[in-house]
Each structure stands twice: as C-alpha cells, then as structure tokens.
C-alpha cells in the first residue's frame, strides 16, 4: 500500500478541489457556553470532536459556524443505515477512458484539509465507523484498500461527528473503541431567552412571537414521559416563525410546523393541539 499526500491526489486538478464546500458567509450561531473556545482548542490539537445533543438544537449550525471561523471547508455527510465504508472512502468509476478513482467525502476532506462532519454517526454501518479508527487517533491516516493507498490526513483535516443519545436504534450505541477517540461537547436546547433570540433572528420575526413559540416548544419537551420521543426542536420553532412571517396566523403555523409533525399518535396529537391553543388561542 502506498502512502500519499495532497500533491499526488487522484482528483487534484490544480483548482480548489473543495471549492464547493467552502463557506462564504458567516453562519449565524449564538453561543450558549464556552463551546466555541472548546472547539477551537480541539481543532488546534487536531483532536476529533463528538457533538451530543437532541435533534435540531444547533449542532450542525455550530459546526458550520466553526468551519467558517477556522476558514476551512466543511464536508457534511448525513449518515444512514446503508452508509458504507465505500460511500465515505470512495470507489472506482467507469467512463469512456476506463476506470478512475473518485474520493468519497471523507477521503476528500482528509486529503485536502477540510472539516468532515458525519451527522448521526451511529446510523452508519459498522464497516463505515471502523474506517474512522485510524483517522481519529494519532495516526491520522485513512487506508483506501481498494485503491492500495494509505492516505495521510492533511494538517487542517478535522473530524467531527454527532449523535443523539436520546434515541438509538437496536445495537446502535456508540462503541467505547470509537467513543474514546473523541473529545465531546454536550448540546441541549438553549434556555428560553436565548432560544427566543435565536428564533427571532433566524426567522426574522418580533421577539414576543418568538417567546411564545419557545413557550410552546418547552411544553412539548415535557411530553417525553408521555410517549413523545423528542419535543419540538429549535429548528421546528424557527420553521413556525417563518410560516408566520409568510402570513399564516401563529396558531396555524404552530400546528403545521410543530404539533402535526411531532407525532402520529392520536392522544399525543390531541395534547399537542391543546398546547398550541393554550399559547395562541383556539382557531376562529
């Protein structure tokens, strides 16, 4: 197996191979603690970062913001149960001239020095997660066995993964061998005032409306013990606010963006609708 660096990259064409992955505007992110400093310290030490937290609480936005702060491209992969090692590392393709190798997103980020963000890593297949082991420790290498290449990661390469401890499929817990390679940051929904500011800023609505939506969101999160897997995320509240901005009455927007998507169970639907009415009043 031959070792390669960026100079011999199979896809390097002279142009910026990661141009499409660069961020040109600062993504808005409202820090809730010391997570920015913590992430920058991990990046300086080239330590991989694990982000834990419920869905829609700002993990992805945080990574986008940090990639922009670090002035590095961001390669994002949404992991799923069919995501294989080949999907991350790359594969041979056939064209008129014969076969050629195409880097997968992980190899692309490692070769050219990007932040690679694997969203919901536990959903990926086992062979995909094992691929990360040598890349996430001090070796910082990615074996591309099908190509016969041992890819040494670029100094700017940073591995970031996220997962939601609140719901994990059967046999899908993060294994200690993977967990212990990462530094970790715990995320949660911001406290009410901060979350309202985020909703108002993201959707471009007045703060009082955002506060009402946050009041609704907080109440849906109390339904966890009544069978609701996860309450309304900040993202959902932003969606509701955006619908109001588009002209919908607040109650109708909250039903469409929050109450109706959250659950299919009739009892929970009834409760969610009652909560929307408690905040915004009954329709009509």
């Amino acid at each position: 197996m031959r070792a390669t660096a960026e100079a011999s990259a199979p896809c390097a064409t002279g142009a910026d191979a990661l141009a499409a992955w660069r961020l040109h505007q600062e993504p808005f992110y409202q820090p809730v603690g010391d997570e920015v400093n913590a992430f920058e310290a991990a990046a300086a030490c080239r330590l991989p970062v694990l982000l834990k937290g419920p869905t829609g609480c700002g993990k992805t936005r945080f990574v986008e913001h940090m990639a922009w702060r670090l002035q590095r491209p961001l390669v994002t992969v949404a992991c799923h149960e069919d995501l294989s090692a080949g999907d991350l590392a790359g594969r041979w393709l056939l064209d008129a001239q014969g076969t050629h190798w195409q880097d997968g997103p992980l190899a692309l980020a490692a070769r050219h020095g990007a932040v690679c963000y694997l969203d919901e890593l536990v959903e990926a297949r086992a062979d995909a997660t094992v691929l990360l082991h040598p890349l996430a420790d001090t070796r910082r290498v990615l074996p591309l066995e099908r190509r016969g290449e041992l890819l040494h990661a670029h100094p700017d390469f940073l591995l970031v993964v996220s997962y939601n401890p609140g719901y994990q499929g059967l046999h899908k817990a993060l294994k200690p061998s993977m967990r212990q390679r990462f530094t970790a940051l715990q995320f949660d929904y911001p406290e009410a005032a901060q979350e309202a500011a985020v909703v108002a800023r993201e959707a471009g609505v007045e703060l009082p409306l955002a506060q009402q939506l946050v009041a609704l969101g907080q109440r849906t999160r109390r339904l966890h013990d009544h069978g609701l897997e996860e309450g309304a995320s900040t993202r959902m509240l932003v969606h509701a606010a955006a619908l109001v901005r588009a002209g919908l009455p607040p109650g109708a927007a909250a039903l469409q963006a929050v109450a109706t998507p959250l659950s299919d169970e009739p009892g929970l639907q009834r409760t969610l609708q009652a909560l929307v009415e408690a905040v915004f009043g009954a329709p009509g």
Partner: protein
Amino acid sequence: MRPAEVPIGAASVPAGLGAYQQALWGLPARLVWLEGPGGQGEQAPVLTGGPSGLPGMVPTLHLPVSVPVLPWRWAEAVVSHAAAHQRFGAAPQPRAGLKPVQQALYGVLEDARVEALACAELPGLRGLWSAFHAGPDALQGLGFEALLARLARVLLDPGWHDPHPWVEKVRRGVQGPDGLGLLQATPASLRQAASVLGHDIGQMRLPFNPRSYRPHPGYRDDNQHLWCWDPDLPPSDLPLQGEAAQGRDTQVDLQAPPSLQAAAPLPSEPPPATAPGVWHPEWDRRIGRYRPAWCCVRVEPAVPRGPALAGFPAPPALRAALARLPGPRQRAPGCAREGEALHPAALVDAALDLRRGHAPDPRLYQRQRVQGAPLAVSLLLDASASTAEPGPDGQPLLAALRPSVAHSLAALQALGHRQAAWAFASRGRLQVTLQGLKAWDESALAPEVQARLAGLQSGGSTRLGAVLRQALQEQLDDAARHPGWRRVIVLLTDGELHDIDVHEAGYLQADLARACREAARHGVAVRALVLAPGRPQALRPCLGAGACAGLDGPAQLARQLPRLLGGHG
C-alpha cells in the same frame, strides 16, 4: 380532529389529559375520577395535595363524573386551571378571621390571580376559560353567587364590562388603574381585599349557603386547597376511598371483587426439592459488589389452562410495522447500479459495449448483501400481583398483556424472526420463577402456547435483575445453537420493581441496571414496554432513555414494539 368528549367510566383518566397537565408547567399531578355520590347535583373538581403538594404527596386532581359527558374543552379548562393553582398558588391559609362570604370572595380573587399569571405566559388560556364565563350556563342575577360569577368574568376578561357597582368596585380595587394589579397581587393582599370588600357585600344581606356553594364557572375546583385543614368544616365532595383505589398497594383488599382477591400475592412456599433452580448473582449497591449465587430462578413450563386465545393471526398493522425491520432476506448475486466494488464480468461487458459503440449497462457493481441479521426476541411477560390491577381499559393488566404477547410472537414468526416467551414473578430471592410460554423452536400459533398464555395468573413480585440474567442465559444458549441472529430481550411490565425481601428503595433498580450492562456486554439488547398506568421513565435509569416505551393499550403495540426493536421511528 380532537374528539369532543372525554370517555367517562374508563378505569383511568385518558392519558392525553395527564400529559396536557404536566406539559403546561412541568409539575407532577395525578388525574383521577371523583367517585362521589351520584344524582346529588353537580360536583366541582377537587384538587388535593395543595398547590405544590405536601411532602411526599403528589397533588391530585379529581374530575367529577356526575355530569353526563365531559367535553374535552371543559376537561382542558379544568386541568389548566388546576395547573395554574399548582404553578402560581400559595401555601394554604387559616380560615380564622374570614367569614364564609369573605372566604368565597377570596377564592374568586385567588382564582383570578392565578389565571392572570397563567395567561401572561399562555395567552390562549384566556379564550379557553372565557368561553365558560359567558353563554347560557353563566350565572345571572343579583344573588351573592351570581355576583361572584359576574366578578369572576370581569376579572378574567379585560374586554368585559359589568354594570353592577359592587362588581365594578372590586374590579377597580384588585386590578388597579393600569389593569395589572392581579399580576402584582399576593395572596396576603387579596385576603385583605376580600376582608374589606366582603364586608361591603355582607351589608347587603344577600343569602349565602357555604355548604352548597361551589365556584363558578364549573371548570373551577372547589378551592378547598386554599385553606388549612379544619375539622369543623362540612365534608368535601371527595370520598376518602378514592385515594386508596388508585394506590399500588399489593396487600389483599378484602373489599375487592373475588377476581382481584384471587390475584393477590400467594403465601411464600419453599421451592420443591424436585425443581432445582439456577442460581444467579445479584448486585448490592450498598456494598458495591455482587452477592454470588444470591437469587434462585426456577424455569418451568406454564400450566396450559386454555381455552386458547382468539384473534389470530397477528393484526395486519403490527405485522406491517415489524416487516420494516431488518430481517432474513435473500442474498442476490449479480450486478447493481451502486455498490462497493466493480463487477469484473460487468466491466468486460461494458468495455465490449463501448467498443461496439453501444451504451454500456449501468449495472457495473457487485450487488451488496442486505445488511442486518434477523432478530431473536425473548418476550418476558410480567405476571406479578400488580398485573391483576385494572389497566386503562378497565380489564386487568395481565389480560391486556396476553394478546399483546401472542400477537407479537405471531407477527415475529411470520416475518422469520426467532422468538420465545416467558412469564416471570418472584416471591423473594429464593423463588424467582420463569414460566415458559413458548420455546424457541415452538410455533407461536400452537394451541399449547395459546393455552399457556390463557392460563397465566397474576401473583408474586417483580425482581427484574434475576429474571433478566436468566433470560440472558436462555438467549446465549440459543445463540450457541443458532449464531448470527441479533438478540434482544423485551420486558412487558408495569415497571414496578418490588420484592417481599427487599426494603431498600433503589436496590432492585441498581441490580437491574447492572443486569442490563451484563446483557450489553454479551451483545444482547434489553428493551421494555411499560404498560399504563406504569410509566416508562421508571425503567429509563436502568435501561437507557431510548430503551423504554409506554404502552397505553394493546392498540399501541404496532407502534411501540417496532420502534423499540428497530430504533427510532
């Protein structure tokens, strides 16, 4: 669309109301039916346990059943009003110094104060409550109770004007010139106001019967929780036995129907010498180590007492939901459009096509094997004494669990998964019992299996750690014979851990958590379906947040079981 009425007569108040109550301000409360004397006029809801509850006592809202139907919006108004008392109410006060007229007035003012604070957070509640202050049922007239009802309306609805001078005087007095007085008022200031303004109306010599008085409108509770206990007062609507009926005490209730008496714990008996058990360790959190060979688990076949359960095969919804899980599928050789590795023969064919000027077949990769082995599921059914208590549909929990187990087994079998089932109970650490309902290689539809399920009876306690260790052993034995299956143990239980020789809170939970970790080390997942009125959070500290789900009834099985087996939905 929401249903228009709350079903009365169910063994417990619909879970949606309880969820609504807890979601409003995150405060715990039980909702139960108020079992008062029927046919004696309308009853008011009753809130016991005080606004924030007495130490060790969960506040309880008792909903009246003396009305023909409970409209959902009325029930929501009752629940949200009580929740406002819980959230914004104060400690009970002594009645001394206030006459009944002043006490009734104080109740109206305190109701208005907590509702104003609630509306400041949740403005939609004003519309919910206001609807019951207006309309044909609203009290009218110049009697004392009618004036209180008119005052209640004008204090809730800032857009409503009442011409009565006393009502207007009270409104101005408590709301102030800026209309914000109620938000800043305290129970002490309202008591002072009630004292003064009540004296005014007392001068009008209006008749008032404190024994028959109940706050208006009807969604408001009887406000007894505002006052310190007074032995001289007329009795509340609340029957004392209502509390006990909701309890989870496993003692024999001599007043209970014969069917419940039969389900009470049996007296302890030593294990028969002919049925030696399997000894398992148990984790003792006080000493931080295992007690070796501490629990004796007997595995014995359940006695088939037929008749077999009806209702097979499994409901289509359950089977369809389980069919989405990874299962035994055919591995198909050949080519695919996407894959990990190129298919050599397809490459040759593609090269030939290209040389001939033809478009090559896009299926150039080796077809991938389907991921995910099928499941080997152990269903462990709780047969302890508490499963004799009525569930949400009024029938004993065990009766509700039986078809759930039978349907699950049938659906899993039809989809090619391995399955086995046991019922468990314990009578101390030396008598933990697993009754075999269905062996691994037995058909789920066999009459013997159905007869064993039908013959199952409640009795004993719940010692889940030992049960889980034995179930793990059964799984590992089967894994030695049938490797390659993804193994999972599913507990169907009411979630109440208890045994007759354990008196330390949290002991059995700590042991269960240990047993779950032992299973995880062997690659066996543990999941729990907690049947209402049990709550899944009781087991979450032991099994993990994503490993427990509630089950309000068998109808939810199609939704919850696949979620537990396959992960999040």
